[in-house]
């Protein structure tokens, strides 16, 4: 009988964060009480304990924020030389790095994601986004977007709960670099790091009104989207809401970028580097509990190696550690909300009902909080709901294919088109596949990599516009011939 190597608890200390009992709206550089006089609670999804009570911005509050942003745009931020804007963004990048531990712990408390991910991915990548975009602020005329790209004005941004701070950075950094001002609405279940970011803006002496944070739920987001003085909307979230936004801006001059859902195929060929492919599958669907729009939620594996890949995958999944998100050894954290847990539960039940075979590793779920064991469905067909609908949870559907053509046909057989993965040691096949896959990001022999320099965004119903890189700037400036 071999000994067991049990990793003792290794919780990250929460002493570094100081959560106030309540938060107001951040408008014009000040925290101000909501005119709506409404608030909502934000909880720790791992424990269901309340973290804070947060203001719910009404239409009047959104209007105040837009007015503040407009003033800041007209008087300060718009006229400011790019080189000066750049220095503010560099400052923010530096402060984020300095306060990285605080942000990581707060993100994990509010979101439920493992501390190793908030610490190693979310927060450093967010800081990197500000650093990257800072450099663009005084170089926009070299971005290939016309001789003198001009800002659009006031930008309304609505972000999701899966990467709260990182999505904030993806939105705010390019907007500010290009000379726009911002009204941002964080997701209602994860407002805290955005509110801490407001503090960073003050620490950086960012002029009042350049960044405004209005917390609230869908109603607040709708007020922002529909506000007549918004020049551009940037939204990351569900395809359903993305379509509502596209409808609501119809006939206006508002510009829109949408980063929406996905149902990515992760295609594994028989000549794949199999151990790395297994890691890529795991990273593809279990990173951030599968709360990732570009998650590799459909494993398309060549039939000749399907059994072996699934065997290796199942063995690997038994080493995943689910539990306290603050524990540095946790691989799978909490599901972000009861509502999301319900959706995952409902869709997985449908998977079973439709005849797919369900498997999870032995896995003890904590008594309190929202949890879902890593789950793999085999015997899945293209027609099953679990192969078509975005589950946004730690649930993988395994399908097989026989030939590269069939792999491409199945991979593209979706209304989405955000990302895709390809695993093969054959270089020419990778390039062939990369050409054929209809997705905004193709990861070959890797998965779920992100970088500020690398454009991200979808085809088809995964939305339009890109975030990051040179391409991401285009969403925030007047392109030639439009204005």
């Amino acid at each position, binding site marked *: 009988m*071999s*000994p*067991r*190597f*049990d*990793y*003792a*608890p*290794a919780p990250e200390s929460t002493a570094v964060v100081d959560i106030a009992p309540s938060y107001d709206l951040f408008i014009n550089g000040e925290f101000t009480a909501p005119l709506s006089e409404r608030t909502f609670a934000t909880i720790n999804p791992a424990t269901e304990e309340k973290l804070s009570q947060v203001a719910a911005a009404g239409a009047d509050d959104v209007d105040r924020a837009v007015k503040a942003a407009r003033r800041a745009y007209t008087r300060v931020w718009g006229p400011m030389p790019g080189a000066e804007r750049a220095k503010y963004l560099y400052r923010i990048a530096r402060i984020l790095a300095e306060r990285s531990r605080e942000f990581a712990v707060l993100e994990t408390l509010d979101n439920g994601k493992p501390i*190793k991910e908030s610490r*190693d991915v979310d927060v450093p990548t967010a800081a990197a986004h500000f650093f990257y975009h800072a450099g663009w602020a005084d170089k926009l005329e070299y971005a290939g977007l016309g001789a003198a790209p001009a800002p659009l004005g006031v930008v309304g941004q609505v972000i999701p709960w899966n990467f709260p701070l990182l999505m904030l950075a993806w939105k705010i950094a390019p907007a500010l670099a290009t000379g726009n001002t911002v009204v941002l609405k964080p997701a209602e279940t994860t407002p805290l790091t955005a509110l801490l970011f407001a503090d960073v803006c003050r620490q950086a002496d960012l002029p009042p009104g350049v960044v405004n944070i209005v917390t609230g739920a869908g109603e607040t987001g709708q007020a922002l989207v529909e506000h007549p003085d918004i020049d551009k909307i940037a939204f990351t979230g569900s395809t359903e809401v993305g379509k509502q936004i596209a409808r609501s801006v119809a006939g206006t001059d508002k510009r829109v970028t949408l980063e929406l859902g996905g149902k990515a195929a992760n295609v594994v060929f028989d*000549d*794949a*580097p*199999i*151990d*790395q492919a297994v*890691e*890529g599958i795991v990273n593809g669907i279990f990173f951030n509990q599968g709360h990732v729009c570009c998650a590799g939620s459909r494993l398309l594996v060549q039939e000749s190696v399907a059994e072996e890949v699934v065997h290796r995958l199942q063995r690997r999944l038994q*080493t995943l550690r689910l539990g306290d998100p603050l524990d*540095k*050894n946790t691989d799978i954290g909490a599901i972000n909300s009861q509502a999301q847990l319900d959706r995952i539960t409902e869709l997985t039940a449908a998977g079973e009902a439709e005849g797919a075979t369900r498997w999870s590793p032995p896995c003890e779920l904590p008594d309190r909080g929202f949890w879902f064991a890593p789950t793999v469905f085999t015997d899945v067909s293209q027609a099953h709901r679990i192969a078509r609908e975005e589950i946004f949870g730690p649930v993988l559907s395994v399908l097989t294919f026989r030939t590269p053509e069939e792999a491409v046909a199945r991979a593209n057989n979706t209304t989405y088109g955000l990302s895709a993965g390809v695993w093969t*040691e054959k270089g020419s096949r990778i390039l062939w596949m990369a050409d054929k896959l209809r997705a905004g990001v193709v990861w070959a*022999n*890797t998965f779920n990599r992100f970088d500020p320099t690398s454009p991200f965004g979808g085809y088809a119903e995964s939305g339009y516009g890109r975030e990051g890189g040179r391409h991401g700037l285009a969403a925030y400036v007047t392109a030639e011939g439009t204005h």
Partner: protein
Amino acid sequence: MSASAAPSRARELLGVSALTNKALTSWLHGLPGIDAVGCEGRAAALSTRSIKTDAKAWAIDTAISMIDLTTLEGADTPGKVRALCAKAVTPDPVDPTTPRPAAICVYNDLVGIAREALGDSGIHVAAVATAFPSGRASLEVKLADTQDAVDLGADEIDMVIDRGAFLAGDYRTVFDQIVAVKEACGEAHLKVILETGELATYDNVRRASWLAMLAGADFIKTSTGKISPAATLPVTLVMLEAVRDWRDLTGVQIGVKPAGGIKTTKDALKYLVTLNEIAGEDWLTPQWFRFGASSLLGDLLQQRRKLATGVYTGSRDVTID
């Protein structure tokens, strides 16, 4: 398994009637490729595991018990080897609960000294052989070298493969030499050193691992310690995947020994985590995993005392050898 059984098992596994170089080549080259960046990423991720308190205490003792305490210098003397053996027998004079390392590893002419110094401590004597570290000698010389070590009482033989033959694609030669050395080992355990620092790619490490296991190795070992890089975590990870998959295929369990460059407790913990999560719990004993190291023991002992007493130790608190 006896040495002479290896070729027939190899023919059976490969499904060939004659174990030609061509047959070996197509089998080894048919192994799945390794993406270097993904492999290194996995090793880096395993390195972030945080091992604290009880788990750390357990891991430190386990790591100590897995050490092949090594001296492989031209300047080695009987005195030096006796001192090393004394250290192995009594790693921490103030704490008799401290486990002993698994073996002392020396050149073969010093095996007798070590054997005598270790007495009935249960600590094994490992000898490097086969024209260590370069392996550049005739097979006759390598076998005589091995025979010397066995005759002097070595429990374990650490041989080197012929990297020149391997890189030239002459897998059959590498295979035959391992089989022959294994034969010469008799009862002694055979560790096959791949010298991964000279194999250059993870694909080669995987192929060399499988070739050594096919030829009858009891252990596969990363390095001689004389070439940089010596053991690395990703290389060890690849070898752990190899022994895991070999057991899946044949039912036979093979040991792994990273050697060279593992100096700190922090390093050792990363290897144990990797061992635990890649090969699995079955490998978590000195029977199936060793560290080839010299200075590692000192750091493990310091950390062990820190855990026990709660204060950081000084370098003078630990005996040097």
